[in-house]
């Protein structure tokens, strides 16, 4: 391989490498999101058991 070919392939490989790195970072983000959803469903379940009847949420203005 001449030096020119080495550099050209290096350029294309670098682009590929950066994209793969991006995908890896994105995968980490997805796993974090998944963990967060787990926590929230857990929170929701605990809350539903704690108060069977949902209390009113709106603050009315007392006349």
């Amino acid at each position, binding site marked *: 391989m001449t030096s020119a070919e080495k*550099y050209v392939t290096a*350029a294309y490989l670098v682009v590929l490498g950066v994209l793969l790195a991006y995908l890896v970072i*994105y995968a980490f983000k997805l796993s974090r*999101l998944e963990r*967060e959803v787990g926590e*929230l469903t857990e*929170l929701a379940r605990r809350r539903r058991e704690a108060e069977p009847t949902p209390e009113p949420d709106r603050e009315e203005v007392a006349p």
Partner: protein
Amino acid sequence: MSTSLRNNSAVALAAAAFVLLLAGLTLAFYWVPNAPVEGFRQRIFYIHVPVALTSYACFGWAAWKALRLLWTRERRYDLESYTAVHMGVIFGILTLVTGSIWARTSWGVWWSWGERQLVLFLVLFLFYSAYFMLRYSVEPGPRRERMSAVYALFGVVLIPVSFMAIRLAEGLIHPVVFDRDPSDNLAASQLTTFVVCFAATLALAASLYVNELTGKRVDERLRELREALT
């Protein structure tokens, strides 16, 4: 857009990106003949310039979304502008890397101040890194969205202005290098390869943009859910 429609377009975008990238690579490496003067190393051109133009497109898209945020005050544009800037910076880094490799093959140096586009991308890279610094140091909320939008608008205005500045600086402050404008004397085959590669990088950017945007939307919705539960 309803989620099923959005999913289909995301899949379509990804498929288009894949096909175009494949076509671009095969054309760039096998089909197009060697350039008369430069020979094999000219093939970096088919990745360096499309990536650079895609980066400009991303910054332009971010500015467009920022303008709409300031115009219609709809808050979803902030995430879109933010993701587009993020895409622009990623492709900007790619441009800088492939550009310096090209400078290495053409002039034997990793960095040359004579190459206008490289210098412009360095300026833009500095500018948009400050964009992220701005976002991280302001509380999330309407105020941060509007400031980021204004800054993104400044960015897109800075591109032509600093290109003029770099051109003015040549010969006086920066060395002049025989700068063959890559896109003027292109043979037919080179042009088609270039266009395919450009379409490929655009499709790639659009596909990554859509995915990352969805990720950020899920992030925000989870935060609202957490707020509602606590």
